Every structure is written in structure tokens, then in C-alpha cells.
């Protein structure tokens, strides 16, 4: 059973109110989600609140999780991302932090919750993604980074980059296709 299937099974068990499954999912995801949310909010106290809300939401909405629609970690990331965006939108615009994420320097990532082999594999993939993003044309790289790191909609990206909406749509789609292609080539 691969990681995604194992985690999907945990969510299925959480939906049956199995608390040990929830404990395990918390152990697996909490640090990653916290780090991810902190990148958005830049404030420890608010980030902890958001992560608390995210896990409560995961507990409560696990019955709605559909593995055909979403990978388990993606689902948890999106739950967290939406809460972060809600929190950001309630703040004044000037509080929005600079994007600390776009193609930053490689940062060591270790996770005590995963085996060293799993962590190493994730590190490797993360590093690869950064390299691949750098290979994309600027418009594709920027629009994808804004969507990933700040959760901006295509219209918001269009406004931020002063780029026509149609160009944003095309850039994101081509960028994703290219990333997918590069990922596939890596594993061949």
C-alpha cells in the first residue's frame, strides 16, 4: 500500500470516529501543514489557530472525503489553504507578507514523522520541483507560484501581474503540463 492509500484509509477510519487514526494523521500532517500555513500567515499564534481549525475540520468533514477527487494530503493542504486565505482576507492588505516561497533557496526539510527513506524521497522531489520551476518561462513560473503559494485565483493573478486573464489561464495550464512532463521524464 502506498502512502496516499494508507492516508486515505486513515481518513476513512476517522470518518468512523476512530481517534487513533486521527492521532496518526495528525502526527503525519501537522508539522507539514503548520509550516505550510506559517508561510502564508507569518505569525505563530494565528498559524496555530488555523491548524487547530484545520484538524477540527478534517475530523468533522472526513465523511465527505472522496479519494477520486483528491489525494489525501492535497485535501488536507486545501482545507488549510482555505482557512489561511480566509484569515488573510480578514486582515488589512498591508499585512499580507511578501511571498517567501517563490523559488527560495533550498531549505533542508526533515520530518521526524516519516521514515528517513520517505523523508529523503520527499526532499529529493521537492528539490526537483524547484529546479523544474526554474526551467519554466517566467510567466508560467510566476503565475503557478502565485496560485500555489498565495492561493490567488486566476483573476487575482491577472491583476497582480498585470497580465490578461487568458494569458494567465494558458500560462498556468502549460506550466503544469510542463512540470508533469518533466516529473515523468525524471522517473523514466
Amino acid at each position, binding site marked *: 500500500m502506498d502512502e496516499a492509500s494508507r492516508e486515505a484509509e486513515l481518513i476513512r477510519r476517522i470518518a468512523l470516529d476512530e481517534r487513533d487514526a486521527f492521532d496518526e494523521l495528525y502526527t503525519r500532517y501537522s508539522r507539514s501543514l503548520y*509550516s505550510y500555513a506559517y508561510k502564508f500567515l507569518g505569525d505563530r499564534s494565528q498559524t496555530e489557530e488555523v491548524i487547530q481549525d484545520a484538524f477540527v475540520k478534517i475530523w468533522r468533514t472526513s465523511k465527505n472525503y472522496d479519494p477520486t477527487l483528491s*489525494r489525501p494530503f492535497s485535501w488536507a493542504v486545501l482545507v488549510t489553504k482555505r482557512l489561511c486565505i480566509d484569515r488573510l482576507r480578514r486582515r488589512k492588505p498591508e499585512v499580507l507578507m511578501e511571498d517567501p*516561497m517563490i523559488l527560495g533557496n533550498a531549505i*533542508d526539510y526533515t520530518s521526524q514523522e516519516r521514515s528517513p527513506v520517505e523523508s529523503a524521497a520527499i526532499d529529493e*522531489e521537492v528539490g526537483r520541483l524547484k529546479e523544474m520551476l526554474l526551467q519554466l518561462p517566467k510567466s508560467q513560473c510566476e503565475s503557478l507560484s502565485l*496560485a500555489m503559494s498565495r492561493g490567488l485565483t*486566476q483573476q487575482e493573478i491577472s491583476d497582480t501581474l498585470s497580465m490578461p486573464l487568458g494569458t494567465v489561464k494558458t500560462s498556468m495550464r502549460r506550466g503544469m503540463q510542463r512540470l508533469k512532463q518533466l516529473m515523468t521524464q525524471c522517473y523514466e
Partner: protein
Amino acid sequence: MNRDLLEEKAVEYALGVLPREDAIGFESVLKQDRGLQEIVHEYQRINELDAREAPEQELSFGHFSKVMEQINLESERVDEGESVVGDLAERKVVPFLAWSGWAAAAACLALMFGLSGGLREGVQANLASDDIMLSDLGAPGRARLHVAQEELVLETRMMELADLAETYWYSQGLPPESVEGGSEAPTGGFTIFDSKNKIGFLGVENLPAGKHGKAYHLWAQTQNESAPLRAGILRGSETSRGLFFIDLTQNGAFEDFRGDVSFFVTEESEELPSAPSGNVVLSGI
């Protein structure tokens, strides 16, 4: 949807930026299309890597126990049959038993919760501007409910407001000769609204059945806007009575809104009217 459009939406969906109204349609296609599922999952995998790339941060000691505490609290509420569980935002209309006598109920709630100023116009000067506001049609006037304004998460505040709204609704009890939607039945309503968090509830009673092609719209008159702003639509066929959730958090028109707000309901033939017509069915709420 053609393939190009689906793939375009697949990117947005995987990144979590596809608007909710589009996502619903997209998901129904996605459930049936394995090829599309593979594409979406592949994009999601890329997005996951981006999420994992964030510099590692440590959660504080005791965070897990806080999460469990909140979960236990919510479970207890469900067990005790307390009102409002689940996602209220998605449960816009809650049918309730009919009753009348808003004024008496308001007075009752005032006693229960210590409403400052009762239901008379005028508010004590020392109250915060972000107190919860209760407005009632049965006893024209408004009152503020002074509450501790600690930083509650929105859903907790939502549940608190729902509890207050239900208490208000039921505080009079069921009248012995309750009027069941007769043409002479008086229309009534109230709002309970938290200005700080921009959420609240609208309760309506004996609202006449909407004419074909028309709908009821809720409008908010704020202090800093000369014209009323549209705050929502009362959908569905059960609009003769109900409790509606008011959520202005995502409404850009209310971004700079501060202070007092009053609400009224109009009947409109347009789906998205920019201004209210003269056909007011409830006001002073």
C-alpha cells in the same frame, strides 16, 4: 465541457483556486472520468511538493490537546442535542415552527442575556461598537448585546449566534393559537448580527409566498454608505418562515463596513438587483 477546458479547470482545481460554483460541476465530471482523475492527482502531487517545501516550523507543545479539546467540545454539543452542528454556512435555511410574538420574545431574551438598552433606541455609550446587535420588527427599536469579544474563530462565533437566534426564536414558547400562514398572519422578523465578524442570522415569520419569478433579497444599510448594500437572497420555497445565515465576510461591498447596520427585505424580480425596489416586505430589522 471540452477536454481543453477540463484540463484548464484541472489545474485550478488541483491548486485549490477553482471557484466553488465551478468546482461543483467539475467534480461531477471528475468522478466519472478516470483519465481526468489521473491528471488532477498528478497536478495535486506537484502542489503537494510545493506545500512540503515550506521551511519547517515547530508546533507548540500542547497543540494536539487543544485540537482534541475542541473536537470533544463539539462532540459533547452533538451528544447533548445542542443546536447547530456541522457547517452552518452550507445550511442556509433552517425551518422552524411558526410562532408570533416577537416583542415578548425580545423582552424575554433581554432578561436572559442582559441586553443593554432593552429594545429601545439608544445604546449605552460605554459599549463597544462591535457588540452583537439585535433588531426586531415586533418591538421597533434595536438593542446591543454586550459580549466578550475575545478572538473566537468564525465558526465558534457562528454557533454562538445561532444559539442566540434560536433562543430568541423559542424564548416565547409556542403560542396556543399560532397562525399557520394565513393571509392575515402578520409578517415578522429579526436579525442578530455581529458587526465585527460580519456574520449573523435573519429570522423571518409568515413571509408571503414569493410570486413567480420573484425573490426576496436582504439589504443592509450601513453607517458609512448612503445606499443600501445587497446582503443576500432568501432562496427556496420555504421562505414563509426560517432562519437564514447572513455571511458578509466574503462580500467585497462590506469590506470597509464598520459600526451600526440595519436590515430590510424586499421583493425583487431581478436575480442580482443593484438597488432595492420600493417593494419592502420587512423593515426595521
